[in-house]
Every structure is written in C-alpha cells, then in structure tokens.
C-alpha cells in the first residue's frame, strides 16, 4: 500500500474561528477514506484544503508527492470532486455541461465526446442528454455531478456529502457507482454525516468534532473498540436507572443515558437478553452495534462508564 495523501498539523482558521485544528492523517492508494462528523466539525474545510480550493492556514498536505497550496493546478488536474452543493451550469444542457467542463481539463474534443457519452451512460442519464439542468430532478443532478467529477479520469475522487437530500433509490445508485469506482482502483475520500453511508463505503475513517480527529480506524474496528457488538436500548424514565443498572450492568461493558433511553453496550448479548426476558420490560430493542452508536458516543454530550 502506498500512501498518497499525507497531512500533518493541518490547520484552518477563519478569523477567530478554528475550523480545523492541527490534524494529521494518511490516506492509502485505493482505499475509501471517510471524514465523519456533525455539521461544523471541519470535514469540508479539510477536504477543500486537500483539493486546493482553500488556502492552508498552517501545516502541510502532500497529494501524490505534490504540496497543496503550491502545486495547485497539478493536484486539481488529477482530482475529481463531487461537491456538496449542486454547482452545475444551469445555462447549459447535460451534454454541454460535460463538454465545457472537459475543456477546463484540456481534454481534446474527440476524447471529451467519448468520455461524455460513456459517463452519461454510467450514471444512466442518456435520456436527459440534451435537457437543460433545470429539467432534472435532484437525484439526476447529483448523478451528473458524479459523472462530471470523473471526466478527467481522476486518480483521487473526493465526494463531499454526495447523497444529501436524495431519496433511497438515488442514494443507493450513487453508492453502487462509488463502490464500482473503488473496485476499479480509485482512491476515494468521502465526507458524510450519514453513518450508513460511511459503513457502506469506507475502509477507514476518522470521526471529527470541533476541528479535531477524535478517533480513527475501520468502521468494524471503531464499533468494536467503542461500543462492542450489540446494543440494548431501553426506553424507561431516569428514575429506573439505579434498578436497571443493578440488574443489567454486570452483563454489559458500558451504558449511556440519552434523553428517554438507556443504552447498554455489550460484546455478547445473550446473557443480557435472558435477563431482559426475566425482567419483562415493555420497551426494549436489542440490535447489532452500528457506526451511529460510535458517532453519537464520540460527538454527543453523554458520558460512559
């Protein structure tokens, strides 16, 4: 595995606000690397520095040996970006959007035509080829953004919250395309606040909050380390906590109270399951641990013993 992105002490300040606070990370060739975090965690600021559309306040990033902030054109030429906002050219048709965009990458006309046709097929927009952007649904626009990001055959693809506001069908289609690209060897950077998305796509990820990296690892490993394997949710008033903790605590490796729900985290849920049946509690859920549990635990306000 070759490291293709290396960031050290990366910091971004907007006036007094520190959006990214001295983070370091490495991204390997061919992996999908995720930045997870709530709004304002610094994910987008970080990726914007990677693909050189935002000046670095301090620290360094090297992308495939080129320094961001220095070799900007070179890095941008080999990067594809699926932006968070829909930045398509509304004055142009689907086809024209692709052709004009390929000009910006100096792709010769004939080659641009070929790639445009292939990519429009790749995101299944053939029927809309000559439609204007205003005639597309949000899902179609996002698919076109994916196609556009691939025009320059990027060795690095950055997807900044690529499925925000999409219905499940469109979301799954984008995921499939991203997975397909990854299987073909592309390196992928994903920012998201959808845990399912991260679990579906990422090999490794970092959880960010307030500009800092809280934890990093593979989704599986993070869940294992932070939560365990299984989660029992009990909807019960706070007054019941002492009783429930006394009964169930010994079988769990951690617990957490959030609002009206008491969470127990465990490695093996069989014992606790038996106990639950014994106690005959009305409102319980027993389920596998997910990345969302990790996320809430790391970025939420609650504490765990």
């Amino acid at each position: 595995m070759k490291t293709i992105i290396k960031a050290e002490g990366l910091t971004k300040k907007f006036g007094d606000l520190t959006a990214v606070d001295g983070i370091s990370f490495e991204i390997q060739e061919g992996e999908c690397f995720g930045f997870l975090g709530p709004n304002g965690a610094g994910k987008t600021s970080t990726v914007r520095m990677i693909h050189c559309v935002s000046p670095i306040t301090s620290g360094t990033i090297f992308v495939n040996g080129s320094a961001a902030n220095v070799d900007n054109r070179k890095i941008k030429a080999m990067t594809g970006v699926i932006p968070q906002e829909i930045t398509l050219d509304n004055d142009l048709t689907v086809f024209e959007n692709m052709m004009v965009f390929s000009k910006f990458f100096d792709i010769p006309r004939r080659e641009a035509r070929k790639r445009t046709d292939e990519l429009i097929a790749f995101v299944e927009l053939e029927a809309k080829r000559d439609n204007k952007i205003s005639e597309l649904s949000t899902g179609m626009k996002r698919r076109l953004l994916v196609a556009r990001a691939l025009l320059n055959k990027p060795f690095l693809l950055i997807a900044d919250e690529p499925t925000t506001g999409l219905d499940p069908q469109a979301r799954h289609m984008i995921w499939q395309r991203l997975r397909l690209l990854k299987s073909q060897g592309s390196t992928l950077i994903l920012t998201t606040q959808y845990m399912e998305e991260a679990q579906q796509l990422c090999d490794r990820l970092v959880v960010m909050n307030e500009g800092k990296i809280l934890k990093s690892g593979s989704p599986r490993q993070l869940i294992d380390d932070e939560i365990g394997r299984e989660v029992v949710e009990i909807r019960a008033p706070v007054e019941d906590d002492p009783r429930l903790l006394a009964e169930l605590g010994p079988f769990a490796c951690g617990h957490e109270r959030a609002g009206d729900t008491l969470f127990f985290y465990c490695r093996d849920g069989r014992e606790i399951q038996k106990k639950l049946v014994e106690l005959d509690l009305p409102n319980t859920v027993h389920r596998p641990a997910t990345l969302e549990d990790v996320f809430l635990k790391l970025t939420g306000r609650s504490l765990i013993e």
Partner: protein
Amino acid sequence: MNISRRLFLVFYRNLVSYKRFVVSTLVASLVQPLFYLVAFGIGMGAYMGAFGGKSYLSFLVPGVLITSVMMSSTFESLYGAFVKMIHEKLYDSLIATPVSAEDAVAGDILWGAFRGLISGGLMMIVAFFMGVFPVSVPAGVLLGVLMVLIGIMFGALAMIVTSYAPNFDFFNYYTELVITPMLFFSGVFFPLDNFPGWMKTFAQFLPLTHAVQVSRAVYSGVYTKGLILNFAYILALTSVAFWFGVMRMKKRLIK
C-alpha cells in the same frame, strides 16, 4: 497573480451559454442607446442647428456608443458575475479544476468587454445608417480595439463592486451614484466647455469622460495632444482596476 491562458476557457464557457440569450441581450443592449440617438440626436438635434460645424447627431454618436460599451460590460460584471458566484455556484466548480480563481474572474471581465464590443459595434452599424461613421475604415477598427479596452476598464471596476456586494440591491449604489451621474457629466450629451471650472475638474476624474474623448477623436479623425492624457488615464485605470478587481474577487471565492 495566477493568470493563465485558461481564462479563455472561461470565455468559451460563456460563449456556449450565450447562444441561448443572444437575441434578448442584443435587443436589450440596442434599444436604450437607440432611444438616446433618436430622441436627442434627431429630435433635439433639429433645434440645435450646427454643432461645432457638424450635426448634433455626429457629436452624440461617439459618446452614446461608448456609453453602451460601458453599460454592457458593467452589467455583465455586476449581475452576471454575482449570479455565477452566489446563485449558480459556477465559480466553485470552476476553481475545483485547473482553472484558477484569477482565470475565472479575468475570463469574465474579458467576456464583459466582448459584450461591450458587441453593443458598441451594433451602435456603430446603426449610426452608419443614420449617416454618422468613423473617418476611415482603419479608424473604425481602432475604435473596436478601444471598445475592448474600455470594456475591460468598466468591467473591472464593476467587478470590484461585485466583490463587496452582499446582495443585488448593493448594485444600486453603483449604478445610481456612479454610472448614471457619469452619463451626464462626461460630455456624452453636451460639451463640457460651458460647465463651471470645478465641474470641469470633476469631470476629469470620471473614466467615461476620457473614454468619450478618445471615441470622439477616432470618429472625427482630429487627434490632439490631450488625447495622450486621456489614453494614459484609461490604461492606468484599467490596469489598476483589473488587478484590484481580480484580487478582491479571488479573496471572496477562495476562503
């Protein structure tokens, strides 16, 4: 400043999109100046008699022509650029490619100048049929080159305004407090000679004054020494405004 040949790619993008608006924008940029020519030139001109030995219309045409260049390039850099920046997020997608922010802004200023050239060129044709034309063909070509330069000047000035604009309403300050007064105090409709001294001095600060002087000289073929100063003013302001406008916009686009 990180400007490359890629600014022409931005220009090209505008050209591709322009084909959808070409008719409406041509009509828009033709009608207003045409009103000036007909109302003032033919209507009022009839009462003015000989005007420095020539018809009033021939006094009016070079000024109105340059005004239409100013209007087209100004509005392209105000509303056009603002829409691309805020509403369409077009600059965001441009700067994620090897096109730099400077390329994008410079390309759009140049595009505004091209729009100015089209407006001015149309005026030249219309005036031709009204019997007013530059002294020679090379003079006409020279005027075309000057229109591009003057379009860059006004486009760059407007780009500075856009770089500070929080919303569309902000542009009213510029159009009402700068552009409209300039129309009346730059010698477009009447010579500055009869103004009091302080007003003459004031007019010398207005870019349109110098642009009109240059245009009038090319139309009449009478070149005086003072033109060097007019031209120097235009060159200097164009350079400074272009540099400042591009830098300001870059600051706004790249955060």
